[in-house]
């Protein structure tokens, strides 16, 4: 069924009892042209772009839990392309362009809201850095606007204007950035891929790979039996090391815990996505009124999907410095996801050294915004056996070649980016 105003009116008269399921729940077939491992945002979107751009429709997405159970349903939904390096901006800007037409394209409301992302700065050094980043964006055709102190305070009336130690000096705004509804992105891509023929198979965990006589990958072992495949595309986020470890590959990557927080609903008071330049803190407000915010990763290897208290304290402290009026707002929910932190803070979207095996992963805490653009490029890479120019820098050999894509200049540490 196509969602439209007339289907909505019809269903309203039937008490919304006649909506069909958004996608099928098929049994796995014996063979697919492409098997995608992981039903997160990247896996589902890859299935969609394989069908839409490359006419590859004999595709399965294998998800060990339910779709949306991973980071695609746990993130704070910031979508932006305010990056620094010429090697990363084209990919993220292409992704943002796809976001701008996504609801229409998928016939599913992903509630993409271009409310802007505002990075506030508090020192002269940070201002220089913001100017440099803004110029890098503009040179690459991305929108960037410098705001002065008054413009920032007009936009964000709750920001403490009397902080003497860290005065607000201004901010770098990307007006076309914003946020979206995370679950809708998973469900929208799943439904669109399903309608073009892909099988979305939940409760199907990949436990190993099948190999041919020359070591090439010929399929996967799962808890629901063996499935043969022309090509296998892995997109398992926090479990990238685990799944690639099944073929003996060791990656420049560690799995860490990242927490997020939502407050009780309050009246509209934050109308953009703002970041605090002093502590590690970012904040936006959901349509229901909850303040959505988060900070740094916990900082040690973990697969627990739950965080520890030092980060809670750290984020709360930053909030009290940034917007002290929120000190009496109560926390409603708080959770964590397992993020795949790489040694340069950038992802892998590439062929692997093994024939027929492709990898999309290493998303750190920034992979939600990249879902449309990276999956578009990943589908291109899988279909053609070679990368698109937007994802060409994001291959596994860049570390050995001395070409990391390290925007912070943080060096080879997986928890600093």
């Amino acid at each position, binding site marked *: 069924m196509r969602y439209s105003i007339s289907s909505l009116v019809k269903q309203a008269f039937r008490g919304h009892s006649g909506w069909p399921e958004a996608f099928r729940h098929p049994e796995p077939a014996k063979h697919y042209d492409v098997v995608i491992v992981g039903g997160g945002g990247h896996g589902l979107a890859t299935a969609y772009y394989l069908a839409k751009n490359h006419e590859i429709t004999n595709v399965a997405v294998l998800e060990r839990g339910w779709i949306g159970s991973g980071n695609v349903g746990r993130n704070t939904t910031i979508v932006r392309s305010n990056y620094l390096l010429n090697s990363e901006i084209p990919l993220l800007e292409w992704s943002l362009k796809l976001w701008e037409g996504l609801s229409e394209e998928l016939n599913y409301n992903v509630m993409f809201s271009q409310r802007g992302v505002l990075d506030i700065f508090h020192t002269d050094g940070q201002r220089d850095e913001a100017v440099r980043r803004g110029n890098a964006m503009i040179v690459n055709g991305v929108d960037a606007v410098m705001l002065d102190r008054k413009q920032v305070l007009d936009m964000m009336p709750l920001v403490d204007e009397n902080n003497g130690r860290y005065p607000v000096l201004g901010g770098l705004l990307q007006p076309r950035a914003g946020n979206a509804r995370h679950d809708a992105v998973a469900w929208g891509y799943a439904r669109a891929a399903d309608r073009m023929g892909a099988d979305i198979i939940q409760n199907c965990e990949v436990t190993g790979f099948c190999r041919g006589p020359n070591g090439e990958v010929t399929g996967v072992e799962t808890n629901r039996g063996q499935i043969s495949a022309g090509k296998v595309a892995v997109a398992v986020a926090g*479990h990238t*090391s*685990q799944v690639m*470890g099944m073929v003996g590959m*060791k*990656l*420049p*990557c*560690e*799995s860490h815990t990242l927490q997020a927080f939502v407050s009780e609903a309050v009246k509209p008071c934050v109308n953009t996505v703002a970041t605090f330049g002093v502590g590690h803190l970012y904040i936006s407000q959901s349509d229901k009124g909850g303040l959505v915010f988060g900070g740094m990763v916990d*900082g*040690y*290897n*973990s*697969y*627990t999907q739950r965080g*520890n*208290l*030092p980060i809670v*304290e750290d984020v709360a402290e930053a909030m009290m410095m940034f917007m002290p009026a929120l000190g009496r707002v109560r926390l409603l929910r708080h959770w964590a996801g397992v993020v795949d932190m790489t*040694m340069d803070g950038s992802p892998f979207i590439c062929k692997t050294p093994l024939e027929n095996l492709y990898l999309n992963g290493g998303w750190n805490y920034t992979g939600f915004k990249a879902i449309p653009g990276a999956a578009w490029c990943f589908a291109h890479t899988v279909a053609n056996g070679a990368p698109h120019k937007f994802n060409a820098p994001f291959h596994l050999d860049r*570390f*050995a070649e001395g070409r990391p894509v390290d925007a912070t200049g943080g060096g*080879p*540490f*997986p*928890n600093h980016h």
Partner: protein
Amino acid sequence: MRIPCPLCGARPLEEFVYRGDATVTRPEEGAPMEEWVSYVYLRNNPKGAHREHWRHVAGCGSWLIVDRNTLTHEITRVAEVRPSGDAR
């Protein structure tokens, strides 16, 4: 999460900093490039038992080797790094 420092007793997480996998060792000088790439960048990243380096910065300052489970956060062994093979 609390880490039982052998010198100070069980102390809260915020007193420690994390360095990472304690099983990677620095190659000999003149080792082939792949060994250096592996040392600097590649990690086993296990789901389960992990041997790792922590430093008790806001306590005694010692470097520690901690055996911790990355799936449960359970800590089974903590030892000081000694200037033996362990410290490399």
